[in-house]
């Protein structure tokens, strides 16, 4: 009986050490993922980033066309790095909607003039309303929204060259 208790205790300890050793080998994942994947876009209404644009709402994502929702900002340095990849996605047929966080119309216009404008629409989210509603944890981030307005995929951080085919594949999965 006593020996059995000791064996069980030692097995428990060995299991704990093995789990800790395995977990410590794995690279740290610093990203906090959205818990909204698989859920419809929450209701929102954001003004356009420029005077000639139109208001953006969740209804704009329910017309049957899957889209990329790119959360960015003119003050965000990695957003400059992902600009060529966004242009490439647009070239390959992606419809990209931009949402600029905590930004001003002048800075948005300057950023688009400097680094290219791959967007079919750009909305201004000055209070990070939509960003918080969809569980985005920073800029830049890119969400795949299917034609019914359901959030299907989240890419965290800037889009690198290797991420372009991944996002195109996610768009096709969403019905492109």
């Amino acid at each position, binding site marked *: 009986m006593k020996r059995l208790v000791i064996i069980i205790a030692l097995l428990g300890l060995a299991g704990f050490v093995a789990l800790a050793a395995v977990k410590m080998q794995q690279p740290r994942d*610093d990203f*906090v*993922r*959205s*818990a*909204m994947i698989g859920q419809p876009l929450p209701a929102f209404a954001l003004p356009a980033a420029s005077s000639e644009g139109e208001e953006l709402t969740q209804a704009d994502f329910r017309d049957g066309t899957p889209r990329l929702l790119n959360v960015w*900002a*003119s*003050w965000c340095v990695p957003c400059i790095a992902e600009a060529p990849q966004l242009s490439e996605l647009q070239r390959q047929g992606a419809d990209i909607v931009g949402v600029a*966080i*905590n*930004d*001003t119309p002048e*800075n948005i216009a300057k950023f688009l003039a400097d680094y290219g404008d791959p967007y079919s629409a750009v909305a201004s989210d*000055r*209070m*990070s309303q939509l*960003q*918080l*509603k*969809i*569980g985005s*944890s*920073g*800029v830049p981030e890119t969400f795949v929204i299917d034609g019914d307005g359901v959030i299907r995929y989240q890419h965290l951080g800037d889009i690198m060259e290797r991420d372009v085919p991944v996002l195109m594949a996610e768009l096709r999965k969403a019905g492109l």
Partner: protein
Amino acid sequence: MIARFSVVGALLSLMVASLTLPIAAAATPHPPLAYRQLDNPSREAAAQELMETLRCLTCQSQSIADSDAPMAASMRHEVRTRIAAGEDPEAIRNWLIQRYGDYVSYSPQVGAATWPLYAGPIVLLLIAGLLIRHRLGGKR
């Protein structure tokens, strides 16, 4: 003499740098309530208490009350706006958990993954109690 000139040069470049700094800072705007306390002291206290137990998502070892990250500023604005509107702090916490998962909260909740943490000590105490009773009973 050369050294003195370079000191003057360094001072001049510092002055130039200090002139350009405010422009760089103004390039990252933040929502109004990110750095402004609420006028109502008890509401501000409630907001502060909640913000200290919410994780900054881009600088994860800090609370949003401690962090200067743009994301933390946005979250402080959201918290203060909702508290000012009379919303319950725990309702705000739950709203954020729905969007970011349990990880956003520093105040752990009993759930499918965390219940052993709460049940564990009780089970261990029960086992210890049984062992002690067994031993004392054995000696008598």
